[in-house]
């Protein structure tokens, strides 16, 4: 597995491992929260903007439609196997299972970013419009998760709360920024890129390194909660990404995506949200335990995908597509 080793030895992954190590030895290394959040916004803006610029250059606007529909379908569907696995093999409550399932139907932007960086390093091209796919997959899963959490309950959300939830889903900051920067990239095209290139392109790898350093620190902090979670949940955290990746790859084959696009769609399906969905769950299922889903999405699935998953999906996709 040459690719796996090359991935492991890339600066972003090494920075993640450094953060992980620092967290495990309980170092007081700490990236200020305000800065970490700004770096996340930067990453979101960059992938959105670059995606928009590329779409403008290639004008594949129509080719997007089936892909976006399929992506939304993936996001809607993936919570189902997640919920089933959780209810069968773990003892989490229905509410928590629904909340967790929503996280796994949605996507992790940083995992996506790491996958694009992996492809770039190996010189594998991918469809520019994939950034739009990320935006589309963020939220449908919330509906399915919510439905699953509430099956069997007589009372649904009252009207006020339903309104708040719809608003939260549509106006979620990361979705707005991703779609907005995509539109800005599309509208300003090559000229816009020339002006923003030093920031959104040249700086990308460096910022990703710092952000992953922080992710490592956060992931390590999640480890403390693992003891209480039991082996069933931990196993879920590494098996659900495989279910997701397989599904995503099948969809990519049907849609006839490029090798790069296939890897990205598999990675998106394999990843679990820890930005948009936690925010929505605070409104939709306020009494669900947020540390449970974050520990899974952030503490297990994220590092699994980053270190092992992405090169694995790439290797499989190469056989199928390459």
């Amino acid at each position, binding site marked *: 597995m040459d690719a796996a080793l090359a991935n492991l030895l890339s600066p972003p992954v090494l920075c993640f491992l450094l953060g992980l190590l620092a967290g495990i030895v309980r170092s007081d290394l700490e990236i200020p929260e305000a800065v*970490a959040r700004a770096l996340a916004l930067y990453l979101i803006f960059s992938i959105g903007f670059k995606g928009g610029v590329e779409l403008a250059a290639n004008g594949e606007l129509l080719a997007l439609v089936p892909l976006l529909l399929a992506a939304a379908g993936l996001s809607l569907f993936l919570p189902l196997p997640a919920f089933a696995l959780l209810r069968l093999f773990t003892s989490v409550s229905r509410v928590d299972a629904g909340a967790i399932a929503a996280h796994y139907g949605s996507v992790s932007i940083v995992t996506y970013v790491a996958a694009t960086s992996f492809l770039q390093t190996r010189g594998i091209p991918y469809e520019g419009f994939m950034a739009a796919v990320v935006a589309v997959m963020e939220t449908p899963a919330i509906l399915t998760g919510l439905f699953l959490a509430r099956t069997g309950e007589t009372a649904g959300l009252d009207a006020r709360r339903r309104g708040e939830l719809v608003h939260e889903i549509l106006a979620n900051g990361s979705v707005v920024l991703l779609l907005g920067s995509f539109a800005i990239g599309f509208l300003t095209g090559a000229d816009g890129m020339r002006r923003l290139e030093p920031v959104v392109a040249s700086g990308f790898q460096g910022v990703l390194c710092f952000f992953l350093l922080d992710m490592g620190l956060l992931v390590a902090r999640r480890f403390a909660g693992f003891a209480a979670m039991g082996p069933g949940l931990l196993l879920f955290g590494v098996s659900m990404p495989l279910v997701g990746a397989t599904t995503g790859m099948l969809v990519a084959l049907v849609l006839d995506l490029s090798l790069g696009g296939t890897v990205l769609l598999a990675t998106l399906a394999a990843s679990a949200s820890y*930005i948009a969905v936690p925010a929505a769950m605070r409104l939709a299922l306020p009494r669900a335990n947020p540390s449970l889903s974050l520990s899974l999405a952030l503490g297990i699935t994220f590092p699994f995908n980053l270190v092992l998953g992405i090169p694995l999906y790439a290797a499989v996709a190469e056989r199928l597509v390459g």
Partner: protein
Amino acid sequence: MQTYKRKRLEIVVEKRRAPAVLELLDREPGITGWTMLPCIGGRGHTGTRLPEGATDALDTVLILVVTSEEIAHRTMPAVLDLLQDYVGVVLMSEVEVARAAHF
């Protein structure tokens, strides 16, 4: 120094719910003001929260309101009602102020 007795309400809520609480306070004409402070973590029935670089969905704030006993007794249940099963706590305590008209 001559002082006047007032009540002090402290409300810990998720940052994203704070606008709803502040709106409620702003609708009560007797309440002359409030102060909001950031929290960097907490523990309660929904587990432990510590700063997350990745998301601010779990952030909480503390809202401090100084007002008359009567209004405090009216506002406390209204806030609890607003929070319903959302995350949060509401505390009440005694406080003295010097400028009676200000609160």
